[in-house]
């Protein structure tokens, strides 16, 4: 024991306690819950919210890789998300018959497009100033949005693209009934999304714990020092942008798989980008797990707000301004967003970690 270096001792401790830490147990419990939820609540609404939470967790976590772990503000993450969603939608829509290999084609198209775009953006904008990165990504994202709206022949513009999925994902498919629960296409899609999301999330967690991830954190915290230590910061930043953007496009494929419908408004538009930003900030920048909290909070609010709106309309039937106010739920997101950025900049997980750290520090002082 005594001849171990502090780092080795830390690792050894980590290895030994990996499966008994509360964190691990919580993770397992959450996973079990995700598996069981559609069986306990067979209503579409619950399944829909949970699936969207999983998908957006992936997208937000991949965004966190860029913003939280390299400090680069990309305003084009919705573009990568949309690229993924449109890849799947358009491949299936323009093919005569939905097939399994379409998923592979879509993934291939989405990944190569997003890697190429991410590289181009990085090479153009990182050369000058970090703020250019924000401007460039914003310009490109808006451009993609307008392109999708205008190129009717390819994208069906604002009508969006509806399509059918092959085999057991098809809504028409229904399997055996097990213990009173009907196994149908919707349920199979849910589990597909669950499996892929978990794999992608674990990949991202592994990524930030890898040596590359550690260097990224070092660059974020002190770029001159990381450069002075001999790390090629540019290369690492590019790597994280490409990696994060690719995962976002895969998240887009999951989104298209779940909805079976893609439109510019639901994937490429600025409000989606703002949603992603809001989720990452509510969850906590640079925490990765915060993305779960952020996605869950926003998606649940989004689902329950319309109920509130209807309630407002039935209680005050004659006040037009009030109805309009109730309709504008994006307005509240905007206000919430500003408030969170001002007063809660560390987000949920960041603040929680800070509190735990403080408590531990106090406990250490006492002992």
């Amino acid at each position: 024991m005594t001849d171990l270096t502090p780092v080795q001792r830390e690792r050894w401790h980590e290895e030994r306690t990996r499966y008994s830490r509360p964190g691990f147990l919580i993770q397992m419990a959450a996973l079990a819950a995700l598996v069981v939820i559609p069986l306990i609540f067979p209503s579409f609404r619950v399944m829909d919210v949970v699936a969207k939470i999983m998908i957006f967790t992936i997208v937000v976590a991949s965004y966190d890789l860029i913003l939280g772990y390299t400090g680069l503000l990309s305003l084009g993450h919705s573009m990568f998300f949309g690229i993924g969603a449109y890849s799947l939608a358009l491949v299936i829509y323009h093919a005569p018959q939905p097939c399994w290999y379409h998923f592979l084609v879509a993934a291939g198209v989405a990944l190569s497009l997003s890697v190429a775009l991410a590289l181009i953006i990085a090479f153009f904008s990182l050369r000058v100033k970090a703020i250019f990165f924000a401007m460039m990504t914003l310009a490109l994202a808006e451009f993609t949005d307008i392109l999708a709206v205008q190129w009717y022949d390819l994208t069906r513009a604002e009508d969006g693209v509806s399509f059918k999925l092959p085999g057991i994902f098809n809504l028409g498919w229904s399997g055996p009934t097990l213990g009173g629960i009907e196994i149908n296409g919707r349920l199979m899609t849910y589990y597909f999304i669950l499996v892929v999301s978990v794999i992608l999330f674990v990949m991202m967690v592994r990524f930030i714990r890898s040596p590359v991830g550690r260097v990224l954190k070092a660059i974020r915290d002190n770029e001159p020092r990381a450069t002075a230590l001999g790390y090629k910061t540019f290369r690492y930043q590019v790597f994280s942008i490409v990696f994060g953007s690719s995962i976002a496009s895969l998240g887009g494929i999951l989104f298209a798989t779940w909805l079976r419908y893609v439109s510019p408004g639901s994937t490429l538009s600025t409000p989606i980008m703002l949603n992603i930003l809001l989720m990452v900030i509510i969850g906590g920048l640079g925490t990765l797990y915060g993305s779960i909290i952020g996605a869950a909070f926003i998606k649940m609010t989004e689902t329950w707000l319309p109920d509130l709106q209807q309630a407002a309309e039935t209680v005050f039937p004659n006040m037009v301004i009030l109805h309009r106010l109730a309709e504008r739920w994006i307005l509240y997101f905007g206000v919430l967003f500003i408030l969170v950025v001002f007063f809660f900049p560390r987000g949920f997980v960041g603040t929680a970690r800070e509190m735990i750290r403080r408590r531990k520090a106090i406990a250490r002082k006492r002992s």
Partner: protein
Amino acid sequence: MAADTGLAVSAGRGGFDARRWGAWIVSVGIWFIPLLWIDVITYMTLTIAGLTMGALLFLTASGLTLIFGLMDVLNLAHGAFFVWGAYAGFSLLNYLNTLGWVEMASLGQSMGSLVLTLLTALVVGGLLGILLEKIIIQRTYGNHLKQILITMGAALVMTEIIKVFWGPNDEVILVPAAFKDSWDLVDIVVNKFRGVAIVVGVAVFAAIQLVLQRTRLGITVRAGVENREIVQVMGYNIERIFTGVFAAGAALAAMGGVMFAIFKEQIYPGMGDETLIFALIVVIIGGMGSVAGSFLGALMVGLAFNYVAFLVPKLALGVNIMIMAVILLIRPSGLMGRK
């Protein structure tokens, strides 16, 4: 290097700057290439449309670039001022129309209502600018990430409030009668309002340059763009100057908004976002902090957009991104940006 007199300094420095000249050749040459495919009369019409768009874009971009240069703030709420200006003007024109000053107006009345509309937009934009700067922006100086996020949120809130008051749909904005018809210059049809827009754009550019180059206030602002600290320790209240410039930029954007609305004869809440993108491209092309650069950039973007929209409609937006990319490759800090 000087922000606004780039050429003079480069000449004074001596030597041949190939990159700078390359950028200039590209930026001038682009104006004539379309003649290969377009006949002269159409070309002239498109050019005038492009100059109009450029002049209107400049109104928005000039504020953006000054705010960035002076305050180091990337203000993504700038497009929201644009929309607010447009809607304020829309309401005023509707009101003036009930007095018979718009659709049935004489030349004098048309002029009067246009001037009133522009003034209203300026005032609305300026007031909103002061509010936003005092309440929100002032708390975020020095923190780029926070600024971008906050201004993005503010843009969203401001656009949503528009939808609450005026509804979310497209509306037709009334055009004062005297500006509805056009002049006929040797087969080239020039809509009168386009002429007005170009004149206003050039006048605003001249006025900004005059103020920046010749007045004490202008010297202070230019000094602030370069080094805030020196200006502060000389006894200038830089925060008040910030608020002033921010309000002026917002006012110009609002005026640009109402003019753009009259130019297009329609308004919708999303017009701010689209213009913001154009303005950002203009600012990147021209160099952040340079008013002259954004004037040039705005004209380039306006012209390129119109030529390409005529030739290959689907590429119209893409061409501006391409110009931006090319200029960034040659001169990463933009046409007239500081290194």
